[in-house]
């Protein structure tokens, strides 16, 4: 069962996920969007970071299809993981839901869902947008 205990500066992110939103931070000094949640901007090292709701759209930078899962994920293979360049700038790793077929440069959209065990917490997954 997937369960995440948010670290303090990540609580707004996980509260957003629980409400169906993908929230990112934005540096009030340099204006760049930041993920994962931090206390300092990793670009300009300013300490004024605010939150906003991201579009949830992105482009696949790379992916892998897992054929040998482990632990609680063993029965779920094959499944695809992707590193996604969010339209707002930051890159995040997630899992592709629906059809596992994915390619680099594919457009994807966030889909906040529970996967597997009904006790699992909601996570931001991504679905490939097919033309």
């Amino acid at each position, binding site marked *: 069962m997937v369960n995440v205990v948010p670290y303090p500066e990540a609580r707004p992110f996980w509260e957003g996920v629980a409400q169906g939103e993908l929230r990112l931070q934005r540096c009030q000094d340099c204006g760049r969007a930041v993920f994962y949640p931090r206390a300092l901007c990793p670009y300009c090292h300013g300490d004024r970071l605010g939150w906003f709701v991201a579009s949830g759209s992105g482009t696949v930078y790379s992916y892998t299809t897992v054929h040998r899962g482990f632990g609680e994920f063993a029965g779920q293979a094959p499944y695809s993981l992707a590193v996604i360049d969010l339209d707002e700038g930051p890159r995040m*790793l*997630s899992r592709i839901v629906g059809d596992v077929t994915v390619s680099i440069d594919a457009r994807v959209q966030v889909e906040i869902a529970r996967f597997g065990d009904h006790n699992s917490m909601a996570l931001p997954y991504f679905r490939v947008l097919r033309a």
Partner: protein
Amino acid sequence: MSTSRRAAIVGVAESDTGATPHLSVMSQQAKAAKAALDEAGLRMSDVDALLTAGSWAWGPSVSLAEYLGIRPDYLDSTNIGGSSFEAHVGHAAAAIEAGLIDVALITYGSTQRSDPFNNGLVEAADVMSRQFEEPYGVPLPIAAYALAANRYFHQYGVTSAQMAEVAVSARQWAGLNPNAYNREPITVDDVLASPMICEPLRKLDCCLVTDGGGAVVIAAEDRWTDVATHPITVLGHGEAITHSSIANMPDFTVTGAAQSGPKAMMMAGVQHADFDVVEVYDSFTITVLLTLESLGFCKPGEAGDFVARGRIAPGGEFPLNTNGGGLSYTHPGMYGIFLLIEATRQLRHDFADPLRQVAGAELALVHGTGGMLSSASTVILGRS
């Protein structure tokens, strides 16, 4: 490097590797340390610096000093992954140059094959990985290297068959090493027919899972006349970190070797064409391709061609990973110390077999990669 007070590797040894249910993480390191010191003609009481890495203790160098019955006054438990031991060489050489120490002992041990629950490897992911990787079922480290490989293939059109040459050549070198875990020859087709684990990485693209330990003894030049071996001089070193988790790697096709390599080569005052033998961390076949490019031995996207036609195999023009590497010799979780041991032996001309020994080897480059292509550490070693 300044010529004020040089450092050299004066002793190297492995403990038993492969499957070693008769050894612990500590006894592996103790046995390797004793053998390396014996080879150099030094005693445990000569050691004034102890450097080791692992997560079998909160302070590995502290625990090991007690186990060995020594009280060194320079301790380093720096753990940056499999490249830690190349970093330790740099740290020891700098301390020798500064006049802080005379004799440094670097060790590693792991029982990950025989005792997976007490194996000396990193057990707990960091807090970011637990929040943003683990919930998705990311098998690490292989998924990280697979993500890099797919991006690399996409950008440059390199293929799995080209990448497989790395595993085929490693196995040929292992055939010449009686201590190698897997020695039977394999073909590109064998690699491509092995089970897919994480696309595009198949089983034979992956390093071994073995036990093993090793030790490297470094001495200041004042002590070289005391030692029984040919000292192998540390000519340059460099370290770099580009990211921790794979999603934060700036460019999946360029590793920190692009920083640590030039830094080490500039310190040593050497060029790419000067190297007789090269030992680079081969956690996966993709690691070797990316490392060769990032070090500058070939241009981006050209590593597939660079390793083709037996070029890195025994008898080839670019002897690489001459003990069989982590792919075929041994890989006890962190492999970096074995790169140093092999390079030292090549530069000492230890091997009688003319295929196993790189003829007249004078200069070696050793490069460790740690974590999820996260950390890089380069060491340049010379015979004279």
